[in-house]
């Protein structure tokens, strides 16, 4: 697997993630509806996490190892989302 580039390019992923977080902060205070705000925050956070994950897993140098980390990550995300939605549905509303 190709190693990531040297220090010069190493700032780019962090800058992209910082951009996502900056937009998140703006969205958190923007005068928009509740559902729009929640959707935007979750979408931006997912993008930031995906960018960070890509950068973090770049050092593993093996596809099998990357999958070994991604397996629990995906499993955890799916389980958390499903159980949270279930709990919200039982309470009678999707978002709170």
């Amino acid at each position: 697997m190709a190693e990531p580039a040297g220090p010069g390019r190493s700032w780019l992923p962090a800058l992209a993630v910082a951009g996502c977080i900056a937009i998140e902060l703006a969205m958190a205070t923007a005068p928009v509806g509740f559902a729009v705000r929640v959707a935007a925050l979750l979408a931006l956070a997912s993008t930031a996490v995906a960018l960070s994950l890509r950068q973090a897993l770049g050092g593993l140098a093996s596809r099998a190892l990357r999958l070994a980390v991604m397996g629990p990550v995906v499993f955890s995300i799916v389980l958390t989302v499903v159980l949270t939605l279930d709990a919200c549905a039982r309470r009678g509303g999707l978002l709170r």
Partner: protein
Amino acid sequence: MTGPGGLPLAGAAAVPPGRIGMAIFLGSDVMGFSGLLLAYALLRAQAPAWPDPALRFDRLLAAVLTALLLASSATMSAALGAGRAGGPAARRWLLATAALGAAFVVGQTVEFGALATRHHLGLAADQAASIFYVVTGFHGLHVVVGVVLLLAAARHPAREPLEVVSLYWQFVDLIWLVIFTVVYLLPVGTRG
């Protein structure tokens, strides 16, 4: 590296054992954080009322803490790049990363202190406070361990320890992004 009968294992020699160990650790650690975040989500979904994060927390301080971790992610990448190139700058970047991590821990301690003393929100104040301290405290503990690992790696910045510490640090940063969004930013709905 060889398998049964002394036959070489395809691709096995390409991955150093430190990275395999860290990958296994991170896989289990992700599930630990996931359990805590699930507990947060379930408590929040089932509670009769939940405090508005905008009113309870100092979002500016949390944003500064996030910026510190993002900057540390960049300096960690720079340390890794310098380490791979065999340059002497790796130690400098590692120390910068450790300093940013230490600043994060100091900031979090200040936040906890302000919540507990100024706002009288101790660990047992309510469900929201309890789960907040547990989730952010568990992450803070990871940052403390990371700072120790970074300082240890900075003493003799060899490539392999650098790769392993980098993997750990990037994950600690990544998990904070989720905590920051879910705990500090996600608004409270009008229902309930």
